[in-house]
């Protein structure tokens, strides 16, 4: 009995950790919470979309070509009679995988480069930042097009291209945070008791940069999906018959006057997905940025 009571009091005045604070602030933002739920739903679709889909993605049905949305085909059918709803469902995993792959690679590389540049300074800093400047000297999608023109079209190369141009953003972000944290008291204390450079970088400085990285990760995720689908739209990314959203949309332009829905639904899928990652990013920024707390 007595023990029980003690636990209860502990529960009442819970310790406010930075994490619980962030969660509390995040929950207050309805847009971001809805966006997160939608993203979880998308992840679910990415894994199980093919099972839920009423038709196979490459199931041709020449008796039902370019039919408008109906109960049999929720989003209608394309010029080969393929069910657009099933194809868009299946496209979810492609877009999410591209976003995840490209941004994760960009974030990891950028973070490591940013930590090194900010912590060591000097020549290492100059070299890394000069490379970032050069990457920044190409407008995003132009750089991606250049990389795809070199490597050839295809989804893997699109992922590489998007990863390359998201790297400098992370590098700059982490570098500036590292510069401020480098001179903080706890880092100096760690140095004085003989913690190795790697230990300082990854156990003392990196955690301080994590909030920035998380926010940027979510924002980059949205824009990466947008860039990747733009590249597919331009014919440089996914190739037919892949049900990539940008490609589906590009295909629809041939039937614009007769079958509008072939362009409308894939575009809507891209828009909602990118929107939810941007909203999540906004929400995370408000929850994690100490400057904004009042």
């Amino acid at each position, binding site marked *: 009995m007595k023990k029980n009571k003690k636990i209860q009091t502990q529960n009442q005045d819970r310790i406010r950790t930075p994490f619980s604070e962030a969660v509390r602030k995040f929950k207050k933002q309805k*847009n971001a919470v809805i966006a997160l739920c939608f993203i979880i739903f998308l992840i679910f679709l990415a894994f199980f979309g093919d099972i839920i889909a009423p038709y196979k993605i490459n199931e041709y049905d020449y008796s039902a070509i370019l039919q408008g949305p109906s109960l049999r085909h929720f989003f209608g059918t394309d010029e080969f009679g393929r069910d657009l709803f099933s194809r868009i469902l299946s496209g979810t995993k492609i877009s999410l995988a591209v976003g995840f792959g490209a941004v994760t690679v960009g974030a990891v590389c950028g973070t490591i480069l940013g930590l090194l540049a900010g912590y060591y300074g000097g020549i290492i800093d100059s070299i890394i930042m*000069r490379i970032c*400047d*050069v990457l920044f*000297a*190409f*407008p*995003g*999608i*132009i750089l991606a*097009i*250049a990389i*795809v*023109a*070199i*490597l*050839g079209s295809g989804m893997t190369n699109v992922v590489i291209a998007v990863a390359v141009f998201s790297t400098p953003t992370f590098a700059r972000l982490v570098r500036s945070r590292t510069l401020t944290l480098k001179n903080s008291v706890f880092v100096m204390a760690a140095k004085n008791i003989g913690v190795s450079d790697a230990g300082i970088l990854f156990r003392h400085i990196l955690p301080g940069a994590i909030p920035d990285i998380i926010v940027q990760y979510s924002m980059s995720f*949205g824009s990466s999906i*947008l860039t990747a*689908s*733009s590249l597919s*739209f*331009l*014919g*440089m990314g996914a190739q037919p018959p892949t049900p990539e959203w*940008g490609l589906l*949309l*590009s295909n*629809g*332009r041939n039937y*614009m*006057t007769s079958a*509008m829905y072939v*362009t*409308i639904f894939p*575009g809507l899928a*891209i*828009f909602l997905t*990118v*929107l939810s990652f*941007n*909203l999540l990013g*906004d929400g995370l920024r408000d929850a994690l940025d100490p400057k904004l707390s009042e």
Partner: protein
Amino acid sequence: MLKYLLKRIVGTIPTLIIVVTFVFLFVRIIPGDPARLVAGEQATQQDVEAVRERLGLNKPVTTQYITYVSGLLHGDLGTSLRTKRPVLEEISGRFGNTVRLAAVTLLWSAIAGVLFGVWSGTHRGKWQDYTGMTVAVSGISLPSFWIGFLLIMLLAVKMKILPTTSSSDWKGLIMPSITLGLGIAAIIARFTRSSIVEILKEDYIRTARAKGIREKVVVWKHVFRNSMISVVTVVGLQFGFLLGGSVVTETVFAYPGLGSLLIESVNYRDYPAIQSLILIFSLQFIVINLLVDVLYAVLNPEIKLQ
């Protein structure tokens, strides 16, 4: 001021050199034999050798590099494989169209973005703020090619008030400009809002209000003018986004600009053209960034003092 200007100009030189080098290496890092790629799959060995000779690919890389750079300095960008005309002619024919589209787009999106931003920022936490920012976050999430098609379907196909494909007269600029500008206006609006919100917290705003100045004057004379210092930077930086966006938008509307030329060249594997276009795009971007930095220094008294 002059010293700052010189320092900034000198600072871009290493970037320029690296960009030119990257563009030079571009054709050489393509997997496979570039001469074979240029000559085509069916070309005989003799043709391939002829192409190699013509492009100077049989000479040492350093010689090639020097030839390339001196060519650039003389305005020689090579010959397009697709049209067999000098790349410079191809580009200059379309350059004006892209600049016109970019200028019109930047103008309307900057005005719209700033107004939306001020409106949201000065009504922080109220419905105006939520409306403005919901529109803005949607704006940055919209795939531009989708918006392009929706506009074509609505304005050209259904309502028939605008031509489907665009020419470079003002009527043909409307739809591409809306498509290209939405995202930029949204970014500018978001940035303006946060800048306004920051400045509203400043002490001098409280002082201005305490003096009894009307709220309209406070907003436009104190808040707006101070926020513009950083907003100008963001507007300028959007130019790069504009250049990138023009690739997609011009393709959607078959607009005869540099962006659509780049895509045509990539599809044709016209490497001299791709190379030069990438160079032109990044040069424009570097110049714009330089101008923005200078403008920022002119506008911001804190930098002038240093």
